């Protein structure tokens, strides 16, 4: 792997390589460059994961033609796919090195910080929503109970914006969650449930189920489950598989593509001649 990265940098296949570097026993995301080739020896692959593609998006914002290499698990690949579709990254400018992935519903074994999800305690199970529930199991609660359980989870929120900041597919310049006319901002608790529902709606056609939001959440709100529900509805209603589909999202602001061919207009006939 290390030799591979070195070769890529030396041959100019990539300008920078995004991976993880061990610093003071912490595995931190690091940008490896040609100028500091010796750092590549510290490249590590572990359970630690960060949204490297988000860093790539920020870099591309500064320099649209930069060639970026990065380590990619399955979730990174799905996020990249979404970012390509939303025109945030160019597929020809991103090269990936595949690494072992998390044991989600898709895979049984892997290296990922999501490897051992925390078990919900008795109280949370009783009044809240267990993070490890399946989306289908949510429907077993009655209407009133569902509302109460979700509101219990939402009212814990301290509006740290961690879920948005870590999210690999959150790339908007202006965020509705910080728009004073839509949601009250400042040092207040968030308005619930609108804060979470707005984010949930924005995850439609984007969320790739990486679970980083839930990992980042200091209040342990089952966000992965919430957005999992959103993705499931998108699948049911729009027949769109977020992350794996090569089609543009049905929530694209430009809407459906027009199938008409562009034609020059008929030349106007001058009347006065």
């Amino acid at each position, binding site marked *: 792997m290390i030799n591979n990265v070195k070769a890529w940098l030396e041959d100019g296949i990539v300008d920078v390589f995004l991976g993880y570097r061990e610093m003071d026993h912490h595995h931190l995301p690091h940008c490896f460059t040609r100028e500091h080739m010796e750092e590549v020896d510290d490249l590590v692959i572990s359970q630690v994961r960060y949204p490297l593609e988000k860093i790539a998006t920020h870099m591309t914002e500064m320099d649209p033609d930069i060639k970026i290499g990065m380590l990619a698990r399955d979730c990174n690949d799905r996020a990249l796919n979404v970012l390509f579709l939303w025109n945030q990254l160019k597929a020809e400018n991103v090269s990936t090195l595949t690494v072992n992935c998390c044991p989600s519903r898709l895979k049984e074994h892997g290296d990922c910080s999501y490897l051992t999800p925390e078990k919900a305690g*008795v*109280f949370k*199970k*009783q*009044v809240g929503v267990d993070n490890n529930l399946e989306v289908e199991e*949510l429907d077993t*609660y*009655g*209407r*009133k*109970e*569902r*509302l*109460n*359980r*979700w*509101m*219990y989870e939402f*009212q814990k929120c301290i509006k740290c914006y961690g879920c948005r900041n870590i999210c690999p597919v959150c790339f908007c310049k202006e965020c509705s969650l910080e728009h004073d006319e839509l949601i009250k901002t400042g040092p207040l*608790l968030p308005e*619930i*449930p609108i804060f979470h*529902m707005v984010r*949930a*709606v924005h995850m*439609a056609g984007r969320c790739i189920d990486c679970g980083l939001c839930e990992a980042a959440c200091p209040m342990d709100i089952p966000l992965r489950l*919430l957005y999992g*529900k*959103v993705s499931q*509805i*998108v699948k*049911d*209603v*729009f027949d769109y598989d977020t992350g794996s589909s090569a089609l543009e999202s*049905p929530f694209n602001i430009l*809407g*459906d593509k027009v199938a008409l061919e562009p034609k020059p207009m008929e030349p106007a006939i001058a009347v006065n001649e």
Partner: protein
Amino acid sequence: MTVKRITFLQELLGLLGLEERLHLSWISSAEAQKFVQVVSDFTEKIRSLGPNPLLAFRESKIAVAAELMPLNSKGDDYDQQRQSMA
């Protein structure tokens, strides 16, 4: 497309049990009768559903856990678990 988007929103509101409070109809500007009908029907429906359950949460900013306990399983689950632990 609009039908799909509204269906999506209804399903999402269904997560909080509010799905019946959103309604979509196409009414032309020439269909006054239909407009009256749809609005009256929807008003009746909302009236029968009662006030917005979210208002209760807004009034008590700091939610009390006891009030939030799901109605169906108040206490039972907890007692069982306590017994099984003991």
